[in-house]
């Protein structure tokens, strides 16, 4: 039995550039874990899950930035902490769902260490930033031995902790498009205590013109093996005024699209009953 107090041994690699990190990944492939903030890598390490090599991004300069421009949208570097994203004025103003998912993630200490990109790349079905970014829409930028590649977040989550990242690729940043005219978003989650992982989370991004929903992206987490989009619900919303009867149809549409399980945090039963309510509230919050 591994000790829960002491990490198993591994070799720590400290690349000073993205190119150097990619070279290390090319050599060690699945034998290497990429570590940004470390808040997940170390916790799973104390539970015995660690690879022979850990590649820390801590010495790579210039990848901890959060930048917004009207043409380029928002760009979040691989080492940008949750707190840095939550403190960013542009994020607060233009991406309420992303802001909230970062601002309430973990604890203040964890937010000072953990990163938004790490939250997405870990691909836990309960990842809060992952849920918010799936709703808003984003691209993950990878660097690998074959060069640069961008993957839409829609194609990124494949199955439980399985993603479209190739073993020798490093996620260097996440790009989020600038909000469209009339775009609103919201994020909510249910946890027992604030630092718990979500029992259920939900995020919506809607383009609303004169009360009519022009397009919708809806994401939920911890209700399936991966963070998912509720495309049936999105279709229900499109072209409609968001009124009581539409909200009822939305509530009724949720259970058929999710496949929750019983685990330490909650039960399938609870998740089936509460998910529709959480989603309705999140939509109401977005358009309020």
């Amino acid at each position, binding site marked *: 039995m591994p000790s*829960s*107090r*002491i*990490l*198993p*041994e*591994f*070799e*720590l690699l*400290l690349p000073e550039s993205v190119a150097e990190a990619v070279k290390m990944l090319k050599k060690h492939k699945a034998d290497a874990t990429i*570590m940004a*903030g*470390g*808040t997940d890598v*170390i*916790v799973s*390490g*104390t539970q015995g899950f660690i690879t022979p090599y*850990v590649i*820390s991004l*801590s010495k790579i300069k210039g990848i901890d930035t959060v930048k917004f421009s009207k043409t380029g949208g928002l760009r979040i570097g691989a080492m940008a902490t949750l*707190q*840095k994203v939550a403190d960013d004025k542009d994020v607060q103003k233009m991406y309420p769902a992303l802001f909230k998912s970062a601002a309430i993630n*973990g*604890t*203040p*200490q*964890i937010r*000072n*260490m953990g990163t938004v990109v790490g939250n997405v790349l870990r691909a836990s079905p309960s990842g809060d930033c992952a849920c918010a970014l799936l709703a808003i829409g984003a691209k993950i930028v990878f660097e690998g031995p074959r060069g640069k590649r961008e993957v839409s977040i829609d194609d990124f989550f494949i199955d439980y902790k399985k993603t479209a990242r190739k073993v020798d690729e490093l996620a260097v940043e996440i790009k989020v498009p600038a909000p469209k005219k009339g775009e609103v978003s919201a994020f909510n989650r249910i946890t027992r205590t*604030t*630092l718990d992982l979500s029992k259920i989370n939900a995020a919506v991004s809607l383009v609303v013109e004169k009360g009519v929903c022009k397009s919708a992206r809806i994401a939920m987490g911890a209700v399936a093996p991966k963070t998912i989009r509720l495309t049936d619900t999105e279709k229900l919303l499109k072209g409609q005024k968001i009124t009581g009867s539409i909200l009822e149809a939305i509530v009724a549409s949720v259970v058929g699209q999710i496949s929750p399980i019983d685990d330490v945090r909650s039960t399938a039963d609870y998740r089936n009953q509460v998910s529709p309510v959480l989603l309705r509230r999140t939509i109401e919050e977005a358009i309020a």
Partner: protein
Amino acid sequence: MSKHPITLTINGQEYNLYVADHHTLLQVMRDQLDLTEVKYGCGRGECGACSVLVDDEKEASGRKAIDSCLALAVTMDGKKITTSRGLGENGQLNSVQQAFVEESGIQCGFCTPGMVVKATSLLEKNPNATEEEIRFGLEGNICRCTGYVKIVDSIKKAQKVINKK
């Protein structure tokens, strides 16, 4: 076992160390340097007993609170770190520590080193924090004795003292 040479400045003192790759900052401080004021509570970032301040030039206060159980010592190379022992100057308690004594914000004392570190950082970042903001800022620090009321009272008292200065 793979090791790296690193330099840490803890509470103003420089340490040149040779540390194992898989050792956390907490482990190195407690086991190699005998800085046992930094407590091991949960080892997974939930309780905050191991909180320390790390210098960060991008923060307005120049430093921020982290959980030392979640940081590998090697990745902290070159950093300036402050534990509860280093909060005060010239052997004096800082305003937060003094207020914890006066307001009985301490019972068993195990969470206290992390609590005063986080509270100091909280007031550095937001000197006019409301009670709600103080409680939100303490979400990463668990106390199993006080029920938090006395802790929040202590921080409010410290806030008054600091803002008068």
